């Protein structure tokens, strides 16, 4: 299983801080597209993805137990 974390406006749209789901074997891009469709998320092309707390490319394949996080454009500072 994989834990998927949401933040900021994505968290508001999904209505949860995280989900448990099976994503092993999928690419980042595939998971992103599925989540976007399910929760009607927009502007996903501006959203980065992290795997185990490091930024990941769209082509990267998610492994068993990986923690995936969707990172909208940041606005700290």
């Amino acid at each position, binding site marked *: 299983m994989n834990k998927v*974390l949401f*933040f*900021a*406006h994505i*968290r*508001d749209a999904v209505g949860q801080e995280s989900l448990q789901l099976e994503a092993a074997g999928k690419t*980042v*891009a595939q998971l992103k597209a599925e989540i976007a469709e399910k929760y009607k998320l927009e502007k996903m*092309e*501006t959203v*980065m*993805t*992290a795997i185990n*707390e*490091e*930024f*990941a*490319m*769209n082509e990267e394949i998610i492994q068993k137990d990986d923690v995936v*996080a969707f*990172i*909208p*454009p*940041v*606005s*700290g*500072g």
Partner: protein
Amino acid sequence: MNYEISKEPIDIQAVIDKVVQREAGAITTFIGTVRELTKGKRTLFLIYETYEAMAVKKLQQIGSEIEERWEGAKVAITHRVGRLDITDVAVVIAVSTPHRNDAYEANRYAIERIKEIVPIWKKEHWEDGEEWMGNQLETVAYPKGHPEEKDLNE
């Protein structure tokens, strides 16, 4: 613990103390505060949210980048999260270096990088609504899934 996310008000002096060194002649700090007016719109308060484990790692990465690029530099950064009111301190960056020009440049590098890669988000609250802020340039996309060049805009 030179890189921290804090739910409490930041003790600026404590951040500065972390970078004091006998070899340093200069310390610069950047203190980001909550401004009341942004493009004419009145902010009531802000909420900062973070992906804390990753944010601390990314702050550490920024510190390493600076220490590699500016010889003898020492860095400490604390970013606050939660609800912040006008004039509250959101972030403190302290950099010490042997020579003062480096202290300014390295500090400026740190704030730019924070705005690029550290997973912290702010929600602005106004009288007539609220909104999660993007990267301040709402049109910016990262087609490759991660930022590749510096966004130097505020």
